[in-house]
């Protein structure tokens, strides 16, 4: 069980977003990572503190541009005076247990803001691509009161859709190679995606990918209540990212994740 000193400090500092609350949530996350658990009473007592936040998962293949995308999206969020908590997951080597947490390099540069909390996590021993305690990390971020919570996965392949258990909105950045219909039918990411962001339109033909996804969605539209959005752009220069932000902002203004 987690040290009550850590949880008490967290509650004391959770009323506003500043260096102190950054410090205390960082301690909680470290304890969770080391295998300590938080008493369920803790979340029950603080459950009603913040229900307005939008949780967004960003997933896609290795090198598809997830971190660069988050960098741009974050700058729009900060410019609009929202606060944002970001969780970045990187894989631990199964051979040596070591992790290089490199997502932060791309995201940190322009922002030195107290409205922004970034935490890199290693997958460590977890069988899944997402460590089990991420759910609790998100709950802690909600208690502090971030407007947006972003969760970036490690580079995924065909069948990694467990991110849906943690967040409401999924942005999927597909790789531009898988354009034939057989591959589309295999991808389990189609089951969960709300927004497709087809990246790198400055160096690749993104139209083919867009058509392949549209054709797949056309075939499955009867099973869906709402068709996902498809946006092409590139995260490096920001093309298309503003559109994604506008969609999320609309959701935020409409009130909640759980519609």
């Amino acid at each position: 069980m987690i040290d009550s000193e850590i949880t008490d400090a967290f509650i004391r500092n959770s009323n506003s977003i500043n260096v102190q609350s950054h410090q205390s949530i960082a301690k909680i996350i470290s304890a969770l990572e080391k295998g300590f658990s938080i008493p369920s009473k803790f979340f029950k007592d603080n459950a009603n503190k913040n229900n307005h936040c939008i949780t967004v998962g960003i997933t896609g293949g290795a090198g598809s541009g997830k971190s660069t995308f988050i960098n741009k999206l974050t700058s729009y969020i900060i410019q609009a005076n929202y606060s944002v908590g970001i969780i970045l997951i990187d894989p631990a080597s199964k051979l040596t247990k070591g992790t290089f947490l490199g997502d932060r390099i791309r995201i940190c540069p322009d922002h030195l803001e107290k409205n922004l909390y970034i935490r890199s996590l290693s997958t460590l021993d977890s069988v899944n691509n997402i460590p089990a305690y991420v759910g609790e990390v998100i709950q802690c971020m909600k208690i502090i009161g971030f407007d947006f919570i972003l969760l970036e996965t490690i580079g995924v392949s065909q069948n990694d859709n467990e991110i849906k258990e943690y967040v409401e909105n999924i942005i999927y950045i597909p790789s531009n190679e898988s354009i034939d219909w057989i591959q589309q039918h295999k991808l389990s990411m189609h089951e969960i995606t709300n927004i497709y962001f087809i990246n790198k339109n400055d160096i690749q033909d993104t139209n083919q990918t867009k058509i392949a996804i549209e054709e797949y969605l056309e075939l499955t539209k009867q099973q869906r209540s709402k068709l996902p959005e498809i946006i092409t752009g590139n995260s490096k220069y920001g093309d298309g990212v503003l559109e994604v932000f506008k969609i999320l902002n609309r959701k935020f203004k409409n009130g909640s994740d759980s519609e």
Partner: protein
Amino acid sequence: MDQIVNSINIERSTKRILLAKIGLDGHDRGVKIVINLLKDAGYQVIYSGLHKLPSQIVQIGIQEDVDAIGFSILSGSHLELIGDFLEIWKSYNDSTVSIFAGGIISKIDEITLKGMGVDEVFPVGTDLGVILAKLDEKLL
């Protein structure tokens, strides 16, 4: 690579080390080698990227709740930059975090840095085994 997971790697795997480049210094070959050294030893390694401000490193160190912070400086401005960093860092009173520095650092500066609160200094040419052994000593 034929290393298999042993108990010391598992012990290291929850320890987080931030490697930082501050100031206008783009020589990152050394830091990349240290990133790989520590990662293969089992540590979690966070790299700040190039050209960061001392205050940015403080922010990253706090948000990531790191156990150690290492600076790689080859521009000769280690006294000023690490001094700036330590001033902000100590205002948050986090004394459990070990601080180390590597790069082109003379013997005299090494003594000065240690007087300022840097735990270990690894001048250019230090054996990688020594770096790992000293870090293990501090962190495990």
